[in-house]
């Protein structure tokens, strides 16, 4: 039995994106419900990295907010180390909040431009009352800056005095300030240049092994996911379509969508490569296709796929949500 840090079960979140009721009444519009996350379950082992990968509309950022308790789920629950973060404010959930942190995508929007770096990093320390003494707090800020590769003197500067990569380091220092155990990373390097991305990814890997952190790593970039993840979940229109270990997923993807996604990702050694694209695009998430959401784009789709939502099949240590999964894995169908 592995040591589970985060347990997500049956997580569902719907948004009401209807027009105001007067407009609905006048234009005879029905209510419009967007199911951003649809019955998603996964668990993250302590000290490991679970990556959620998906394109736009896949619901990956909504899952991040749900896991952090910034949004309430419509159904299902998130347990962090056995307790529910979305429970109403109690002493237990306050204590839990300290142990959960986040690294954001946009290093320009995630730091308050009017605050000094030192104040930004010491805010969580102050809020959780970790260092009551101001001098100790300043020393802790210096230690954190050092940990992410910045200088202690940077504490007096403002965010605009730093480059994107350095800002992301400041964001990481803030995330580490409350000594968390679990960090949600929402596209942490997608706003960065590649050479800087490598610095930040390596830093995050080093910190993980140094501090025993657990990551939920959210990304649209398969190359970054391959570099960071232990376990990968592939999302399509709010549903998990395939979950597998990193190696299993990249070496032998099973779900037709995963296969298409892997083929479409540009490769730095794919000179003159031709893509086998399906020509389709992500459908409107408010009116998603019936049955398996991927069926209109899928080469293997049958009548059953159009009607019936596939169940999860457990195959050789991976979970695949596809009617044809067994056949695909056995190699009896060709994509």
């Amino acid at each position, binding site marked *: 039995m592995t040591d589970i840090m985060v347990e997500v079960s049956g997580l569902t979140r719907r948004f009401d994106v209807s027009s105001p009721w007067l407009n609905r009444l006048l234009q005879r519009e029905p209510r419009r419900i967007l199911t951003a996350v649809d019955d998603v379950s996964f668990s993250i082992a302590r000290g490991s990295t679970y990556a959620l990968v998906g394109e736009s509309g896949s619901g990956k950022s909504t899952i991040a907010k749900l896991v952090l308790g910034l949004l309430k789920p419509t159904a299902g629950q998130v347990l962090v180390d056995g307790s529910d973060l979305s429970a109403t404010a109690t002493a237990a959930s306050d204590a839990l909040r300290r142990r959960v942190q986040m690294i954001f995508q*946009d290093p320009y929007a995630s730091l308050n431009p009017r605050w000094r770096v030192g104040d*930004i990093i010491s805010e969580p320390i102050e809020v959780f009352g970790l260092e009551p003494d101001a001098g100790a707090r300043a*020393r802790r800020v210096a230690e954190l800056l050092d940990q992410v590769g910045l200088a202690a003197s940077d504490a007096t500067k403002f965010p605009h005095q730093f480059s994107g990569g350095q800002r992301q380091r400041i964001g990481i220092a803030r995330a580490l300030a409350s000594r968390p155990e679990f960090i949600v990373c929402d596209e942490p390097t997608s706003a960065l240049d590649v050479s800087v991305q490598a610095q930040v990814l390596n830093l995050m890997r080093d910190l993980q092994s140094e501090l025993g952190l657990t990551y939920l790593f959210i990304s649209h970039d398969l190359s970054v996911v391959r570099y960071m993840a232990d376990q990968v979940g592939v999302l399509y229109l709010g549903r998990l379509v395939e979950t597998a270990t990193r190696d299993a997923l990249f070496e032998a993807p099973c779900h037709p969508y995963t296969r298409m996604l892997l083929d479409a990702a540009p490769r730095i050694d794919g000179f003159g490569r031709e893509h086998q694209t399906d020509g389709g695009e992500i459908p409107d998430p408010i009116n998603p296709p019936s049955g398996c959401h991927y069926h209109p784009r899928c080469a293997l789709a049958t009548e059953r796929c159009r009607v019936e939502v596939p169940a999860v099949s457990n195959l050789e240590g991976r979970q695949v949500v596809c009617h044809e999964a067994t056949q695909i894995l056995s190699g009896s169908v060709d994509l």
Partner: protein
Amino acid sequence: MSSVQPTLKPSISSRLRGVWESDIAWSFRHSPVAMIAAFVFLALILAALFAPWIAPYTPFDPASLNLMDGFTPPMGEGMGSGSVYWLGTDDQGRDVFSTILYGMRLSLFIGLSAVAFAAVLGVTLGLIAGYVGGWVDALIMRVADIQLTFPSIMVALLIFGIARGLIPAEYRDQMAVWVLILSIGLSEWVQFARTVRGSAMVESKKDYVQAARLIGRKPRQILFRHLLPNVMGPVSVIATIYLALAIITEATLSFLGVGAPPTRPSLGTLISIGQDYLFSGEWWILLFPSMTLLALALSVNLLGDWLRDALNPKLQ
């Protein structure tokens, strides 16, 4: 960790250098209009502030007035006392220069207080509307919309009238200044609220607010510690432009006879008094207070225009 004691507070000299090198300061140094406007405004502020020391006479001390000096033209000698009045005297023998200094003092006080009141009210309501959203936002903004359909001078008149009605007659003159501040302030909060609401809506979607929510910061702390500093840029522009407007609104109300009482005249009251004598040849009683009002309002307005352009990244 290292033995270096890190400090979160930078030195004063580095802060000063930072201000001097900032974009705002650079834009100021390169705008002659802004510099002249600032010079005029500063001179008028100082004159108003030090009125008791600068003014050659105390115009509101009945004991020092000599009715015989009434209607002395500029640079003329009073018929009663023989004193020289630079800008002449009014019907009661009050030195126009001194009344202008004291009047400006009152005008500025009312204007600044009214804008401060409007800003505090508008910024607070705007922040709440923008951050909380939903029906709170709808309620605040509908009230604002309704108020916007009335001219602000009418709103001020209305509030002024209601307030006067509620105050017993013997306190009216005493309370007049505060009633003016209240009515002008209430007529001007809308623009602050609308602007701040817009900025607050944009800012509250940014990740630094999420980060603060994540560690359990209460809405009040997020509003005032995180959002407030980030919406102050446009507020400072509106405040400057509205200061000019508040001074003019006050002058208008006083001119209409519903503002500052004649016993404690503001620039508007002085203009109102002077108007009576324009066609009988005593032009100075009207001209000099009017010129002062013009210089005051214009310099503040030009400063506001400059500030708006300087803070607008698109125009740089």
